[in-house]
């Protein structure tokens, strides 16, 4: 009377898993390390430690006021579903302008009116952000208009070439081909 229990031989996959599972899990723990440089770069960018944005545009004089402008990302516009392509800019008002400026707007092309001055900057005056829609038929020689509205009701405008504000956007437009 012999009871023989024949154990099924483990499959190759099972054998490999049991042999290497410890090492594979160590590798899994290492995966996040690969994302660390990007994580710390982003954390520093959003905290402001690495400046206003990835690419500084410079200081723009708008009437009696001035502001420093920067591209949040040094890249072409990002799609936002049916709203089209968006490009983010950051700005900081100069110390002397902070108390006097009520609102700042950004638009491609000269605004028709204060009501249609474009997208508004929000955030603290030391570091405010605006997300600008980039129409697909934007021309390479387009101008970026900055409108500042004062608490006293005055309004001042200035423009800089889009090629100066964001060369990456110009490159993106050229790559997509001109649409009229």
């Amino acid at each position: 009377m012999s009871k023989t229990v024949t154990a099924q031989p483990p499959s190759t996959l099972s054998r490999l898993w049991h042999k290497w599972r410890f090492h594979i899990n160590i590798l899994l723990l290492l995966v996040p390390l690969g994302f660390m440089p990007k994580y710390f770069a982003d954390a520093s960018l959003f905290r402001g430690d690495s400046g206003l944005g990835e690419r500084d545009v410079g200081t723009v004089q708008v009437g009696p006021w001035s502001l420093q402008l920067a591209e949040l990302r040094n890249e072409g516009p990002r799609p936002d579903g049916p709203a089209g392509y968006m490009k983010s800019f950051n700005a900081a008002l100069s110390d002397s302008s902070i108390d006097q400026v009520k609102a700042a707007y950004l638009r491609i092309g000269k605004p028709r009116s204060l009501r249609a001055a474009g997208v508004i900057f929000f955030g603290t005056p030391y570091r405010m952000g605006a997300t600008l829609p980039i129409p697909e038929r934007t021309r390479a020689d387009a101008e970026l208009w900055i409108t500042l509205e004062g608490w006293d009701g005055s309004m001042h405008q200035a423009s800089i070439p889009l090629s100066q504000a964001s060369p990456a956007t110009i490159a993106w437009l050229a790559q997509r081909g001109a649409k009229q």
Partner: protein
Amino acid sequence: MNSRLFIRPAMTAGLLALLGLSGQALAHNPMCECKSVEDGQIRCTGGFSDGSGAPGVTLDVIGYDETILVPGKLGPDSSMTFKRPDAEFYVLFDAGPGHIVEIDQADIETP
């Protein structure tokens, strides 16, 4: 038996994949679309890029000389229909300062 061994690694991989998807910031930019409908009318539909509608939001039809030709508000279905003005015009979807969409008459397709 073998399949059970792989449940946990598969779940871990799934979790990592989900984390990768959460990168895009959630924005709600205003958007507006106008098109010509029958009888020389124009229908404009507003909304926000997060998928929400815009009932009751102001939509004005403004002439190139800045006179307001058709003042209006979007209906419960986030749309408004008006007669195409004779003068040159643009459509302004106005959800508040800095939350606007302008549509020039040249960008409204004619059937």
